[in-house]
């Protein structure tokens, strides 16, 4: 019986465990164009470099900022969408299908579209702003706000996924709970606060954790939409690791960046988990 598990276990080990071990090994070596693409041990010099690499920490902060804001917005929007789709009305199935389309498209396909929509001076946003008499928006060339454009692109694509998860949660809440509360004269807002949110909480946690981990590895969107610019303000950790490997031909350091990102992600997940647990305890007590 357990023999049936072996192929799957092998594949998973090959694809998850072996690379991680390889990264640990590679990060202790210099393997770059300067070494003729051959690995030479360098006793942790890569890690010293990583700790002192301002760009790595800047990218980590940017990636975290992107992930937190993007996921936060997604969950809020997803909740609204799920509440809308939970009610019964005609054409609900069709609308649900149409809402799913952004999630199904490859990221790079729409990333080109975003480049156009946010384009200065010809994109539609810029034209509308011009019509309304506003100044040139220059979104994609302004380092302080271009990351918001990438957040927008990410939220657009992944909200349907979170919405479906929350919708699943909503549909497990028995309707008599609402009826009971309504009989006591409670408003819709109170119903929401006392029934919906607490019962939805595990689903929100699931969607949050899942999306946070995925957003931390954002790569496709950034590479095609902004290339990491302007002034490196949208560059993510995954993109930095990619550049180190494929453009600078520094595999040792690229592996180090990826291990570093992985460790940061684990810490982030642990912190999230602890926060969620304490939040759960507090809600449970209330």
């Amino acid at each position, binding site marked *: 019986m357990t023999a049936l598990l072996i192929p799957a276990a092998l594949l998973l080990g090959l694809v998850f465990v072996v690379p991680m071990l390889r990264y640990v090994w590679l990060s202790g070596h210099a393997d770059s164009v300067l070494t003729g693409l051959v690995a030479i041990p360098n006793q942790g010099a890569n890690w010293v470099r990583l700790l002192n690499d301002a760009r790595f920490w800047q990218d980590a902060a940017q990636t975290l900022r992107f992930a937190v804001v993007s996921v936060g917005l997604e969950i809020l929007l997803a909740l609204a969408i799920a509440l809308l789709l939970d009610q019964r009305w005609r054409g609900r199935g069709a609308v649900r299908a149409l809402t799913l389309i952004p999630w199904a498209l490859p990221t790079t396909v729409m990333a080109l579209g975003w480049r156009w929509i946010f384009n200065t001076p010809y994109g539609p946003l810029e034209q509308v702003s011009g019509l309304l008499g506003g100044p040139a928006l220059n979104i994609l060339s302004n380092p302080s706000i271009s990351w918001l454009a990438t957040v927008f692109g990410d939220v657009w694509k992944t909200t349907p996924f979170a919405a479906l998860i929350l919708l699943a949660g909503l549909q497990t809440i028995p309707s008599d709970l609402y009826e009971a509360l309504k009989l006591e004269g409670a408003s819709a807002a109170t119903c929401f606060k006392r029934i919906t949110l607490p019962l939805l909480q595990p689903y929100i946690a699931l969607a949050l954790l899942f999306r946070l981990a995925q957003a931390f590895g954002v790569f496709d969107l950034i590479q095609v939409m902004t290339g990491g610019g*302007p*002034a490196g303000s949208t560059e993510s950790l995954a993109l930095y690791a990619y550049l180190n490997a494929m453009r600078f031909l520094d595999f040792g350091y690229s592996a180090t960046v990826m291990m570093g990102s992985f460790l940061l992600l684990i810490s982030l997940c642990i912190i999230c988990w602890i926060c969620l647990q304490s939040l759960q305890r507090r809600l449970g007590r209330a």
Partner: protein
Amino acid sequence: MIKRRHQAVGLSVLAFVLSVLLLPSGLYWAQARSVERVSILMPAPFADASKELVHAFNQQHRGEIHLETIRGPLETEAISDLAISSLLLGDAPFDALLMDVTWLPKYAAAGWLVPLDRWFTAADIDALASGAREGNRYNNSLYRWPFTADMGLLYWRTDLMEQPPKTPEDLVQISRALQEQKRVPWGYVWQGRQYEGLSCVFLEMIDGFGGFWMRPDKGEIGLDRPAGVKATTWLRNLITSGVSPQAVTNYAESEALQSFKMGDAAFMRNWPYAWAELQKPDSAVQGKVAVTTMVAEEGVSPTATLGSWGLALLQTSSHQEATAEAIRYLTSVDSQKKLYLGYGYTPTVQALFLDPELMDVNPILPDLLEALEHTKPRPQTPLYAQFSDVLQRDLNGVLTGNQSPSDGMAEATSTSKTILRSAGEVMP
């Protein structure tokens, strides 16, 4: 007895007939198998421009060599990523590559290229214009044979001024005057986006202010020295004073060209290819444009960033002789003439710059030759991509107002020094 002899005769007749029939087709098959297929990866515009040359080559070498070009992306970084990706996977589907001058040290150091010394003699090298000779060697071996000689140029509007500016101050003054007279909305458009083009622009300016970017062999970085900060400040001031639009911080060559073509600017920095675009019927500045070298301070020689593309032969090619033959053909004097007349690609051979037939077609040829005398390559080191990346980020940060010029240059210098240090740890 007789039957067996009949059999023997019959068999030998059959054998004879078969061999007579099969021999020619066998020969043909053997010959067909020996046609060497050579493919060269080029950015799409170059591939399109070379179509006729490739056809002529195949006619000339029918039955022996079949040449084809593979169209790659235009953006330098995009096609480099593509080439590297193929080379890393080990089985590059092309034998040669049209490479930008800045990739050479990296590709050569990675061991992907074959030295071309045995196919190109010293006489061939002497025939090249001085600027075209740069950027083809690494560790004293010739790895790349130039295809076109590109250099950064300052385009100026002949209908708006008598003489082009010589110093940065001149350029700003002329622009401001023209803008005040409302004869043109913007003074100067250039490439300010965070990409390789920005490094090209910056090299011209930092050298024009009497400084230098970096000297890899000595490990010196010149970015935070006075000339570097001055150059950065000058570029930033172009935007803050309104001589250049804010959007220039997101301009690549095509956006700057579009702006200048529509008549929106008095000056543009771009490569020689832009000239042909500007003479097209849909251009608002047709016939009103000339080129000159980039501005530089008094007493400092102007600099034109070398941007030439050249052909390099890959180690993994199994048709090295045939590919070298193709490279010779594509860069021969005749081919260069055709490319110039048809597509405006700057020749590399000195003699062609003085050819009257070519000068007839395009009056800016002497200016290009002059600019070629002032070309300067970007720092030649296998780590160039990293240094350029650092400069692009910090410079774009200054241009977009994210940090001050001196802070930006200080940061770029310290990051560059870190890269040098790590490299030093690898190669004593």
